[in-house]
């Protein structure tokens, strides 16, 4: 059993000292299966069935009204999808937005966490709570609060801009040039979670490393490059993967704030928005599921690439 595993998955390289001791290896594998068994049971029980069902939907004509009888339609939905201009437009929108959103949601929480972890900060715990605060705001309430903030006539953002002498401040949510910055601003409100993850990572770095670096004459940047970044790389890797999954599935804010119309000018017509609307609003479950599985495949490819590259930049102290 272990031999099969090893030969078919050569990347499981280097099973070291215990290699020759096959009973021990087997015991270790059994312990491993035991520990991950809750997930395996849950996966088979709650997750796998619905996933397969949604995949099966893509080969049928299932919809809520079901005016034609339910039947197998082969690859028809997939063909329709490949020829659907909105699919590609929506993917383009999603990727354009991702390029703006990703750096912000990766770097900002990291920097803030470093700031909050620095021993120079007075009242760090108060800061932590205050940065965490908006993360707890129920989603819709939060977006609506921001809708008020960004209103071009009465919102605080433009009032401040007018006070600073800007004569025609932007109509944030209705201007193709400003809607992405506005959405990023709204997104920043959720960084409380990102700060927590990054803080957890920073808390795990042994302080002796910094002391040693100081003795070696390393400054802040040297320590950041040679200690913080490598030691944080597993956590950064986690935030990167999740941020990509999130941004590929992004649609909630535009759904609430522009009612999911994709306005202004189609710039907020995100892929997952199109998917969601097909599923719930147009009640075409078959096509919605097909779009979902396309997104699944896209995400899978992107993640596989990132997992590949991670070998080069993620450092695991406890890996083997």
């Amino acid at each position: 059993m272990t031999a099969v595993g090893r030969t078919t998955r050569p990347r499981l390289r280097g099973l070291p000292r215990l290699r020759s001791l096959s009973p021990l290896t087997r015991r270790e594998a059994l312990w491993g299966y035991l520990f991950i068994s809750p997930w395996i049971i849950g996966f088979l029980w709650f997750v796998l069935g619905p996933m397969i069902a949604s995949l099966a939907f893509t080969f049928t004509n299932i919809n809520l009204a079901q005016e034609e009888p339910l039947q197998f339609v082969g690859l028809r939905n997939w063909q329709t999808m490949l020829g659907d201009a909105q699919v590609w437009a929506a993917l383009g929108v999603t990727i354009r937005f991702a390029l703006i959103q990703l750096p912000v949601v990766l770097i900002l929480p990291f920097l803030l966490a470093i700031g909050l972890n620095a021993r120079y900060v007075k009242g760090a715990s108060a800061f932590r709570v205050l940065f965490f605060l908006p993360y707890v705001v129920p989603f819709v309430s939060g977006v609506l609060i921001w809708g008020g903030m960004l209103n071009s006539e009465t919102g605080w953002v433009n009032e401040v801009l007018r006070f600073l002498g800007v004569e025609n401040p932007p109509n944030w949510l209705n201007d193709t040039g400003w809607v992405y910055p506005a959405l990023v601003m709204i997104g920043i409100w959720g960084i409380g979670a990102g700060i927590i993850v990054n803080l957890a990572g920073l808390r795990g770095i042994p302080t002796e490393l910094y002391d040693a670096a100081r003795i070696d004459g390393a400054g802040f940047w040297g320590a950041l490059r040679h200690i913080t970044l490598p030691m944080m790389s597993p956590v950064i890797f986690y935030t990167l993967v999740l941020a990509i999954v999130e941004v590929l599935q992004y649609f909630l804010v535009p759904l609430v704030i522009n009612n999911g119309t994709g306005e202004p000018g189609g710039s907020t017509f995100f892929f997952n928005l199109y998917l969601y609307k097909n599923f719930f609003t147009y009640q075409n479950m078959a096509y919605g599921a097909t779009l979902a599985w396309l997104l699944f495949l896209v995400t899978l490819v992107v993640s596989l690439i990132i997992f590949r590259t991670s070998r080069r930049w993620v450092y695991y102290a406890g890996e083997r």
Partner: protein
Amino acid sequence: MAAEAGQLDPAASGGVLARLSRSVRPRRPHRPRDAVKSFALTFALVAVLAAFLAPMLRATLVSLKTPDQLSETNAPFLPSLPQTFSFEGKDRDVYTVPLPDGTTRQLAMVKPGRQQSDFVDPANPAAGTITWQGSWRTLDRAWLLAPAFQNYVDVWNLIDFPRLLFNTVALAVIGMIGTVISCTLVAYGFARFRFPGRSLLFTILIATIFLPSAVTVVPTYTMFVQLGWVGTWLPLLVPAFFANAFDVFLIRQYFLTIPREMDEAASIDGAGPFRTLISVILPQAWPAIVAVAIFHLVYAWNDFFGPLIYLSTKPELQPLAVGLQRFNGIHYRNPAYVQAGTLMTMLIPVILFLIFQRIFVRGVVVTGVDK
């Protein structure tokens, strides 16, 4: 997919790092340069925070306003009440009126007009009306600072907080316990044990979050209907005990930063895998575990659609998120109520975070002592 990711850039001092374990941060003497840094950094954080929390301040101010103020276009910034004066059975708005004799008085408007308007003096209404020439819209209304704390009392009474809170706390805490335990075990399995198919299984685990959840709602709901669980808490609680990809991934990443030397030492001392997890790994992984606990709490606290579909026929089992949404749907015409309801809903998660973040910080200390 590379569950076992690569090695550190050899340029970095990997070998040394691996050997070191965590320790208490030593207190060092306070130096003048630190004071400057401290001031600069704190100031920078305050500035960022001010912008970050401005919407929160706005929401708080709105929550303390009365409908009278909210519907007024040129109302003051702080929660205030427009002054009125009751005259001939009706409440009249009070304005600050500059009079021809150069004085300014607070007068109540009785009859507005485009060219001229009639006022009475609240101090002496019997004196009859004073006719003022000009457009009353150029006058300022008289306001009195008056935060409407009553809004919070009203919302408390309207939402039936106690029962909803009980349901929410129960759902969140039970789910949190399940999530923390199951995800820790699964993450430990993936991080510390080699077994055939580990890589593939980990890939599958992560891939479960790649499928947008909108499409699995219907089959999932159907499944719970068939299990007979709709109308109970089970669909919301049971899955939490079987781990989820997000949290397993986070904890596994964290476990992988913990050097193996100590597990191996424990193992040589005769500790089994469970003892090693509890006495060696967990004390060093507190920050990640607490982070997962916080995430689940906030998630469960604000989860709306799950409880909505599974508990739609059982209002007595519904949590706060559903109650709040119902409340917002009814009271959306009074933004003060909506904001007050939102802020009240946030209170308990924020308090819990306050408590948790202490553990969060202490986690490192425990680690050091443990060593």
